[in-house]
């Protein structure tokens, strides 16, 4: 008896059945459709139920409140804002304040965190013990207490505005904050900016040229004198030709507070310092884990090439450790952003404080406001992780893994 070669059964339908329904096939598909319909219906019922209850109690709902006048002021705002602006503007002010704290906090947390992580792995006994003590202390105390500590300790130590600590009679430090002279743009401002941009572009081009010369022809060019010359020289020349770019408005003590100048409020400093030091402890441990994940042979290979410990770390070990460091690092960045909502405890006007706090109690529309606030934090977190994913993709490309 011969076995004939038969054409295989039609694959497409079989594959489709498997893809949609799993091993149960078509009955699995039917179950899923039923489940999705039920889920959508439940979602609709929840929303309709909430809306019916709100109407029964005559609680206003909808997003019309965003156009009402806010009627209150805030102590720090990156955009012009006054009490006669709408709640939408309040939302933007809070959002920008949260951004500011998050971005500056992330920057300092990363710098301090890497320093702490590398310090803990240092062969210097004192340095590694100090870094270890820092991590253990800061990690184990609740972040709210740390923020309150910085705020109360910072405030308690500083004098009142009439007895402020003055530097060059232009910088004043008091418990109202750090007042610095404000830069007012003069006619020479735009040429100055152009000169800075041109200088930076030229410096980058010079660096790319030097790298190409190194890799193709083996010629090593020291570029840093030229870079410094460009970055300082070009803007300086533009200042000479077009006039000074900025005039400084020096703050004066008038009555209760300083008039003129820009002020960095102590709430902002306390929040940023508290969050940065707290997150830095965690980032330090993440960095340490990443570096320890790289094989010890890499350090030895670097030493055998004659590289110093610092150069080995910078050029060989840390780039390989970044693959392990990046996912937990993203977590820490997201934690920092969300922890910034503790600003309400020290009176810093971030998004939660002005929008989900003051606006909520003034309008009473809890559901809409909390939904918007949660949406914003979700968006911030997704954007941060997208950026970090992009960075890790670029890293994996360059390491050819």
């Amino acid at each position, binding site marked *: 008896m011969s076995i004939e070669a038969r054409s295989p059964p039609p694959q497409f339908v079989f594959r489709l059945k498997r893809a949609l329904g799993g091993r149960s096939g078509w009955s699995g598909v039917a179950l899923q459709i039923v489940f999705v319909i039920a889920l959508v219906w439940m979602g609709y*019922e929840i929303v309709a139920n909430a809306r019916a209850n709100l109407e029964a109690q005559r609680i206003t709902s909808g997003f019309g409140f965003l156009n009402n006048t806010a009627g209150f002021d805030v102590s720090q705002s990156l955009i012009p804002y006054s009490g006669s602006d709408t709640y939408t503007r309040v939302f933007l002010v809070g959002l920008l304040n949260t951004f500011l704290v998050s971005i500056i906090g992330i920057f300092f947390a990363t710098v301090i965190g890497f320093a702490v992580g590398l310090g803990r792995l240092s062969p210097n006994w004192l340095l590694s013990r100090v870094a270890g003590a820092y991590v253990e202390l800061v990690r184990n105390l609740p972040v709210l207490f740390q923020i309150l500590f910085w705020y109360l300790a910072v405030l308690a130590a500083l004098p009142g505005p009439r007895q402020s600590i003055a530097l060059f009679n232009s910088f004043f430090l008091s418990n109202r904050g750090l007042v610095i002279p404000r830069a007012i743009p003069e006619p020479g401002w735009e040429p100055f900016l152009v000169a800075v941009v041109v200088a930076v572009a030229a410096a980058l081009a010079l660096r790319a040229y030097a790298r190409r010369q190194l890799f193709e022809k083996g010629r090593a060019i020291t570029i840093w004198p030229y870079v410094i010359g460009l970055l300082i020289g070009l803007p300086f020349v533009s200042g000479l030709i077009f006039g000074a770019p900025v005039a400084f408005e020096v703050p004066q003590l008038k*009555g*209760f507070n300083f008039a003129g100048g820009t002020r960095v409020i102590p709430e902002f400093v306390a929040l940023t310092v508290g969050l940065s030091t707290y997150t830095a402890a965690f980032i330090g441990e993440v960095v340490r884990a990443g570096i320890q994940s790289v094989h010890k042979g890499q350090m030895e290979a670097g030493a055998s090439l004659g590289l110093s410990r610092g150069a080995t770390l910078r050029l060989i070990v840390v780039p390989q450790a970044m693959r392990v460091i990046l996912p937990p690092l993203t977590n820490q960045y997201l934690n920092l952003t969300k922890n910034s909502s503790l600003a309400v405890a020290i*009176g810093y006007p971030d998004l939660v404080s002005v929008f989900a706090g*003051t606006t909520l109690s003034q309008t*009473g529309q809890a559901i809409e406001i909390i939904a918007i606030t949660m949406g914003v934090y979700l968006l911030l977190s997704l954007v941060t992780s997208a950026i970090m994913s992009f960075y890790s993709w670029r890293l994996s490309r360059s390491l050819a893994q």
Partner: protein
Amino acid sequence: MKRVSLLFTLAAAAAFSAQAASAETLKTVKDRGLLSCGVSQGLPGFSSPDDKGNWTGLDVDVCRAIAAAIFDDPSKIKFVPLSAKDRFTALQSGEIDVLSRNTTWTLSRDTSLGANFTGVTYYDGQGFLVKKSLKVNSALELNSASVCVQTGTTTEQNLADYFKGNNMKYEVIAFAGADETVKAYESGRCDVFTSDVSQLYAERLKLANPADHVVLPEVISKEPLGPMVRHGDDQWFDIVKWVLFAMVDAEEMGVTQKNVDEMAKSDKPDLKRAFGTDGNLGEQLGLTKDWFYRIIKAVGNYGEAYDRNVGSGSKLQIARGLNQLWNKGGIQYAPPIR
């Protein structure tokens, strides 16, 4: 599969269950056996716990009067301390039955929050507290000052209006809780602390040197403070309203906690109506015939509650002022019990 379907049924039940029918707050309170009363987190004179956890204050006494009227026991209350930020959400969601938390009666709160004000416990106004060392005699000298305020209150908005109206600049620092606000004021972060005048007197007591601080003479707003209940339950609204009116009417009729027993036997027609000897006004409210007796026996009349908590018999020593009876120079006026 079984676990999934059980989870599913529970979730569906939760989604479909409507809120407990809002017209039955009295029944809910009676079934629970306790009145759930929203109060502040500690404001001397209005609602504050002592070191043993017993709550006292004018707002607390109003709640005790309601509990006495329903249960004949002024201690059958669950006090829920609330910050200015979440007091309204607690009322809207049903966590508390009545909010007695020095809350100002405004139009937007009466409408958009889904709640009703039942009366005025205390006629107040907004003022400023400054350190005597600043040598400031009037609020109009406060240009470019730093002001500490509690967030989410009418205080913030009145402050903005006042400074804008007088063309003065200021820096506002808003905190979530009253304690942090006062601490920041005390540490010198701000020059001025602003709040209702009664709160200024109360918080001044908590400072290290109360005599170093002075309340400025300007009263920049009207702040009628009163209890709040939810929309949609007229019977409960009437009960809370008339408990407060009963306390005021009792002072007007001369009924005190001490003489309530003999006054209950009086022959005067208005007293007979109030005490239920004549007619059934208490039952019309949904309470018992002796509702008035229960209230005055438990907390006394309005004047006694005032003196005990914020007036001459307390540490705050605030004069009756506007809160005196209408026929004695103030504006406390309750409709007649008949």
